[in-house]
């Protein structure tokens, strides 16, 4: 089996179980280069497992998974090395020559001049932006985002979503974003899939122009669709 040339991720028949619980039950998925793919689902459905398999942190039980080698992950927590300064965290594992690019990445996430700061002195949103810069500086073909906004306050979350949308528009990596926030999904995605009981309950392209207005009827229709597949009454919105 070989992936189409335009693919950034190619998954065939992926199966993964933890003990008696099968969390991924024969997943097929193609993600195009530059596509923003969002994986929705209630907690414990294997969204993060799928992402961790793409990151090489878990092994699939069955199936083929193909991904670019240049891929990076941003986790729910910033996961910065507390004992190293911000710039050293951004260029972690890269040669010294990457420091300039690291400063550039920090500037891109709005943290120009923060290179010498210690991670412990940053706010939650700032630390997460450093984590984003650390991913971007590697110029990924595939960017894996594991609920990167979940631990942020509502205002910071909105700013971060905007920043991620902007950065992805500029650098065009393929993106897999795992989230349980339906609005976030509809706002950012080129395509949304809802993972339930081991497979995709629904898979839906979102063809709305950016920036997206959450009061747009099309936006509301998408939201309603995904909420119903998540088992939540759409009337609550």
């Amino acid at each position: 089996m070989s992936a189409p040339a335009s693919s950034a991720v190619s998954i065939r028949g992926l199966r993964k179980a933890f003990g008696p619980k099968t969390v991924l039950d024969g997943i097929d998925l193609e993600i195009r280069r530059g596509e923003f793919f969002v994986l929705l689902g209630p907690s414990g459905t294997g969204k993060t497992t799928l992402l961790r398999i793409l990151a090489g942190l878990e092994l699939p039980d069955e199936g083929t998974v193909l991904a670019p080698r240049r891929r990076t992950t941003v986790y729910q927590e910033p996961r910065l090395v507390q004992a190293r300064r911000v710039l050293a965290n951004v260029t972690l594992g890269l040669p010294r020559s990457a420091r300039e690019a690291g400063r550039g990445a920090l500037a891109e996430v709005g943290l120009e001049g923060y290179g010498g700061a210690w991670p412990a002195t940053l706010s939650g949103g700032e630390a997460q932006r450093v984590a984003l810069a650390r991913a971007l500086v590697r110029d990924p073909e595939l960017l894996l985002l594991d609920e990167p906004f979940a631990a942020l306050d509502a205002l910071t979350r909105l700013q971060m979503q905007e920043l991620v949308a902007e950065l992805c528009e500029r650098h065009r990596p393929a993106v897999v974003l795992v989230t349980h926030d339906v609005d976030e999904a509809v706002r950012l995605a080129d395509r949304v899939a809802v993972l339930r009981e081991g497979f995709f309950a629904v898979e839906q392209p979102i063809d709305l122009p950016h920036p997206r207005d959450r009061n747009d009827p099309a936006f509301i229709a998408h939201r309603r669709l995904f909420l119903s597949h998540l088992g939540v009454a759409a009337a609550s919105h």
Partner: protein
Amino acid sequence: MTLEGVAQAPPTPTEGPAAASPAAASSAAAPPIAGSPAVTSSAAAPPIATSPAITSSATASPIATSPAATPPGDLEPPRYLGSPRRRPAVSTAVRGAVPLLLVTAWWYGTGSGAISPDVLAGPGAVLGALGELVATGQLGDYLLASARRAGLGVLAGGGIGLLLGVVAGLSALGEELIDPTMQMKRAVPFLALVPLFISWFGVEETFKVVLIAVAAVGPMYAYSYLGVRGADRKTVEAARGFGLTGPRLVLGVVIPTALPNILMALRICLSVSLTGLIAAEQIGATEGIGYLVTLAQQYYRSDYMVLCILIYAVLGLLIDLAIRGVERLAMPWRGHVAAR
């Protein structure tokens, strides 16, 4: 986006086992497309001028112009970054391999005559000495006597060290009162106290137990202090908010959290107590494993010297197993991590 030319670029050098999969291998074996050599020549600027999105990014962002920017590579199965699963049987075999190798080397070295019996007694002689001690019942008596001294000493010294460590770790006043003195005490080798203790306590049991207790206070204090300081401030704060104070806070939250450190300290206390036994049982003792070392030295019995070393080695193993057992029982939340 038109990225075909890029995706068909010759594969970049592959790394390690990931390339072994059939899919990656087949794509790597595919002949380069006629139009693609341009890709190899231009390392800095990928030939994707047809894609407006990427060209614009090259000028807009400082990252895309950095040397890190390389053309997209082939897809491959993600290389597994986790630690491989280990079978318990393999793990146990590896664990025992080095000690077994040492014993074999000893056996072969003395048996072949490469090592003279004056330098190192062979396994046969050592087993003979062991048989002698077992037959006279001395081995059991010696071990029991030493275990009693070490046990009492570690219990008293470890208890005091734990108390001081917890107090110093919990309160600033406690730290100010206790820590400087303990740091000074730690710098004094407990063996330096032997003459003083003999003049105070004589050479009987009290002296021996006190010496071991003093030796055990230091490591237990240092590690439990560290463990209490390392306990999550927020959890302790929350527990205080639920009305836990004093002993209930310490026993219910602080000590369980610091338990990994305290058990580490217990390991060190027990091995320090073996050192203490040699010093304590050199004087005024008629039994004990430290006394056995003294005897071997006095009569220049190589077989007894090696036997003593073996007894200490076995004790070390038993201490490790015992602490692992305690860890398994006392820290069920750490499960396989603590007691593997």
